């Protein structure tokens, strides 16, 4: 029974996902299509951030820089040759390549891993907020280098006609793989080592776990998939501006992570859904609207303001997010349903 469930579970899940995607693909207008793609990219970013920030307790604020590196690497590979020849001074072998999405994804992921290794491996011995600051600094340096190395990045003017290769199937194919992979990772020896290091490094080391190996592995996996997410994002919006990968995007992903619950993969999906949905709901309000004949002016910054306030409230009242470290499973859903049922069912009246 147990093995049957273990084999059937993912297959049924995958089947449901494919059905859902077919539905979105065929029935909904293109706007929702775009929204769903963004949702999928956010899942990838959040789940991969979860591996470092949630499991291993390495609170990174530098993942925007990794996305940026991967974005540039993939843009070099997929952009039209004439544009690269006209605006950048790249070596000729790089100018003349014009690749499809898949190899660009892999290269982007590997480049992000490389950057993650080179620039954050020395900072592993830092603890707590010193590590956070180091990664934050890494992010700011990456953005500032991207803005100033005009020969290779076209500076703040950005890289503009990036082919919009990303579609629903690519994104959710990777989402399905990543979620399955990370759920398995959480149960594996390596994943348990990561979580143990995150809880108490000294204790974990006493038990014979190599903390540096666990941290390295966590950062490598996380960087790779963050890079993949960055590549997908760049190929959704069709352009690449270094400022887009600054503190704001990092903050958004951290939001999704904390809302969902650090350490919970299904929580990350929930968080990504909530944040993506609310941004889309609130954006028109920010543009100004008319209610009962009273015209509200445009209020830039409203979405960010509301999110920041929401984040503070969550940190105060529910510091472990919606899911905490638990995972949503059929069994926990059943328990929840039974609990709700018990609440709703009227009590037998006495008298």
């Amino acid at each position: 029974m147990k093995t049957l469930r273990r084999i059937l579970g993912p297959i049924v899940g995958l089947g449901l996902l494919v059905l859902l995607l077919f539905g979105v693909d065929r029935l909904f207008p293109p706007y929702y299509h775009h929204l769903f793609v963004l949702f999928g990219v956010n899942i990838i970013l959040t789940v991969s951030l979860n591996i470092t920030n949630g499991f291993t307790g390495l609170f990174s604020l530098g993942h925007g820089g990794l996305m940026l590196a991967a974005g540039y690497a993939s843009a070099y590979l997929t952009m039209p040759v004439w544009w690269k020849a006209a605006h950048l001074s790249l070596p000729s072998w790089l100018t003349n390549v014009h690749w499809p999405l898949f190899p660009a994804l892999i290269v982007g992921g590997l480049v992000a891993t490389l950057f993650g290794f080179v620039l954050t491996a020395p900072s592993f011995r830092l603890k707590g907020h010193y590590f956070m600051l180091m990664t934050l600094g890494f992010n700011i340096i990456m953005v500032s280098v991207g803005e100033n190395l005009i020969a290779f990045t076209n500076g703040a003017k950005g890289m503009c006609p990036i082919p919009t290769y990303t579609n629903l199937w690519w994104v959710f194919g990777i989402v399905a793989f990543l979620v399955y992979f990370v759920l398995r990772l959480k149960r594996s020896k390596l994943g348990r080592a990561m979580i143990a290091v995150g809880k108490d490094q000294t204790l974990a080391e006493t038990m014979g776990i190599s903390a540096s190996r666990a941290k390295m592995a966590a950062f490598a996996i996380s960087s790779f998939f963050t890079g993949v997410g960055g590549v997908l994002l760049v190929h959704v919006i069709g352009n690449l501006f270094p400022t887009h990968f600054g503190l704001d995007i990092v903050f958004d992903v951290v939001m999704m992570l904390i809302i969902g619950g650090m350490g919970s993969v299904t929580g990350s999906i929930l968080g990504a859904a909530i944040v993506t949905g609310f941004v889309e709901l609130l954006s028109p309000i920010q543009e100004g609207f008319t209610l009962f004949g009273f015209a509200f002016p445009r209020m830039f910054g409203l979405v960010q303001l509301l999110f920041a306030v929401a984040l503070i409230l969550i940190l105060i009242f529910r510091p472990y997010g919606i899911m905490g470290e638990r995972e949503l499973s059929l069994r926990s859903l059943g328990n929840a349903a039974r609990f709700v049922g018990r609440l709703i069912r009227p009590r037998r009246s006495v008298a």
Partner: protein
Amino acid sequence: MSFQYVVQQILNALAWGSMLGLMAVGYTLLYGVLGLVNFAQGEIFMVGAFSAYLAMALGNAPFWVGLFAAVGGAVIAGVILERVAFRPVRKAGGITLFITSLAVSIAIKNLYIMGLTNKIRPFKTPAFLRTVHDWHGLLIYNNTIAIVAVTLVITVALLLFINRTKTGIAMRAVAYDRETAELMGVNTNRVIVIAFIIASALAAIAGVFWGVRFGSVQPTMGYVPVISAFIAAVLGGVGNIAGAMVGGFIIGIGETLFVAFLPSELIGLRPVFVWAVLFVLLLFKPSGLFPANIKPS
């Protein structure tokens, strides 16, 4: 690149170093008593500058009143933030506090952008601060002299307060070991509020200095000094007020000289300098240049 050019750059950097030093003292105090890396300090700085701007532009108040308005506005903001945002998450630890401060910073910044739009606004400066002296070919601004003098006076006063008064000693005790201080009858809540008041007032003064020096204010201005000031605080040794001040001057002058010697098309690389300092510092001497006031673990 003459000698005179370098001296001129250092003179110009003194004002910037003073602002960073004042902000760094705020960081060092809050980190000491609370373990909080307060990135909202940059927004308090902005709130201070804007309070002065609003008092002077809308209320037509004189400069001195503007200065008081700045300190008042920032202190009120700081105390409210402490009560509403930081106190409820205090027990959750340093990382949660830090994320809260990031969220607070984004909230305040966007509140001001919503209310006032992200325009650059001219900051009125009294005439006597705008005078320039020419001393053997070196240009010395009156505002540089005023800023450095005020900063030095504040530093001395603060050092006396921390070292000689009962509250100051309580503050150092809390920074060193909060639980023991509590056992000795120190009211930690009160000490933390006082630390917030001092840090906010210093940030507000730095904000007014910014307005005087650069002649304009903007809701996103808090982003500029916040990181440099934090690095100055780490450089000076956490909890060490004189160290934070010296760290501010070192970072301020270093940043200015770095930009001055850089070819003009690479001026945007300015943030790289401070972060490179931080990288080197944290990797080789995480305790800073001067002794820190933390319990050795």
